[in-house]
């Protein structure tokens, strides 16, 4: 029952943010901040689903989003519909993630992380050289879409990704993924097909990242490989759950809003210190709040609200 209420609440909030904000006269600037919060939330939940639950830290999610963005823009330029382009972006990226996963998910710990980092750089090199993707000069969307479309799609995606995380975290699947994170050998000994499960969740996670990238392609309208495939988006995907709370459904919501809000304040008041402060913040969170801000907030909030920030547990 509680889960149903939470799912309905997420859907209502996303719908309000998507359709009511423009009618309420909220400035385009604030709506853009909402958009970026949703973009980073979708990316963060994609990372959270894979790395948060299994403990396999990925630096490839920025590149997976980038591939989604390129696939969608190329499909749109070839006169595919928006829906078809999004499906293609997700399918292509899932296929690529399957290749990455098959070759790298037998590795453990830092070895897997380095394999994903290698993929991130490889994707950048390939996209720079590929004539069909515009090379280093980038790729422009030939048809410009009204701004409400990527806004609404990104909010819907962020909401869907959060609901998916909520459902998975509270399910037997979520428990088994966390078991892999806890002790993979012990997980295998109780019948968990760890490699297959990791591969499946990595592909699902890649599809979410790809859709986030594809929708962002509609929003940005121009894609440059050095921007799309910079390590920044992979760091955002990792930072958002780490700030809010890894392996929780609602932690990344706090993480995304906090990241965008703080980033914006720093851009205004201390632009030269922007990345330094974000970096220091991450170090402090890892050292002093390893479970992220969500459990900390849960400790000071009244019980009903606090329950929504804690990891979902049966028992």
């Amino acid at each position, binding site marked *: 029952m509680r889960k149903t209420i939470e799912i309905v609440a997420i859907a209502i909030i996303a719908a309000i943010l998507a359709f009511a904000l423009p009618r309420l006269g909220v400035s385009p600037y604030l709506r853009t901040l909402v958009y970026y919060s949703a973009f980073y939330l979708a990316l963060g939940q994609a990372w959270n689903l894979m790395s948060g639950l299994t403990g396999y830290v990925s630096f490839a999610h920025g590149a997976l989003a980038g591939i989604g963005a390129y696939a969608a823009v190329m499909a749109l330029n070839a006169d595919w519909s928006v829906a078809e382009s999004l499906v293609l972006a997700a399918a292509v990226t899932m296929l690529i993630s399957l290749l990455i996963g098959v070759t790298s998910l037998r590795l453990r710990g830092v070895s897997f992380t380095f394999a994903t980092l290698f993929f991130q750089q490889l994707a950048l090199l390939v996209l720079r050289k590929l004539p069909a993707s515009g090379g280093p000069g980038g790729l422009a969307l030939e048809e410009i879409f009204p701004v409400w479309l990527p806004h609404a799609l990104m909010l819907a995606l962020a909401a869907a990704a959060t609901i998916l995380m909520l459902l998975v975290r509270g399910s*037997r699947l979520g*428990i*088994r993924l*966390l*078991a892999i*994170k*806890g*002790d993979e*050998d*012990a*997980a*295998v*000994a*109780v*019948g*968990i*097909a*760890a490699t297959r499960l990791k591969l499946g969740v990595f592909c699902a996670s890649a599809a979410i990242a790809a859709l986030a990238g594809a929708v962002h392609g509609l929003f940005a309208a121009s894609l440059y490989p050095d921007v799309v495939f910079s390590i920044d988006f992979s760091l955002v995907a990792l930072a958002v759950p780490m700030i809010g709370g890894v392996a929780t459904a609602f932690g990344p919501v706090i993480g995304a809003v906090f990241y965008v809000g703080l980033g914006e304040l720093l851009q205004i008041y201390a632009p030269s210190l922007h990345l330094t402060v974000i970096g220091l913040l991450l170090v402090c969170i890892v050292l002093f709040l390893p479970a992220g801000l969500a459990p900390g907030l849960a400790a000071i909030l009244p019980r009903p609200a606090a329950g929504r920030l804690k990891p979902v*547990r*049966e*028992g």
Partner: protein
Amino acid sequence: MTAILEVDGLEKRFGGVHALRGASLSIAAGEIVGLFGPNGAGKTTLFNLIAGTFPPDRGNIRLRGESVTRLPAWRRARKGIGRTFQITRPFRDLTTLENVLATVPRTGATKPADAAASRALLRQVGLDSRAGDLAGTLTLGMLKRLEVARALALQPYLLLIDEPLAGLSGRESADLLAFIATLRSETAVIMVEHNVRQSLPICDRAIVLDAGTVIAEGTPQDIRTNPAVIRAYLGTDAC
């Protein structure tokens, strides 16, 4: 009696160390078998080969007549081989109940594997009052019982219990052995244990390994008086 497990000529080398040299054994349904031997005899290697942690260099392992020699560990678990670990390996950040819920029951398992069944297993091992607590907060004795509950959730044909008494007090050891003795009706058990005196009485049969080879096999009484066993444990002067 029907053989649940047949191990035939298992060999395993780790570099220059010949850990197992053609070990063979057979376990029947409902049997509790003690696997004994001095340090370095190959007991844990044999456990790991049966559970599928790594493959043997030579030899065969059959579960209920079907070869599982080349199957990965998770497939063997789903065929019905459960295990515990010498040093407990709980999922520390999951609750006690979630630890049991994580188990994937063997293919063709007849009992349900829902939260109610998992709670019943926790009750069976005396941990039902700690169902909602993180496994990382349990004592060593509780963790040993949790590992048994987690393995029983597989509804296994064969349960491998590795050094269940290590680190436990006398009372905890007696309670755990009494519990293991009740498992005959559910599964066959192979138990590796250093405390031969305490664990032998609950065994139907004992197998003794030395230097990677089975040197003796028989009833607890046979084993106590077997000269090869006495020699392996106490040296050649003892005979």
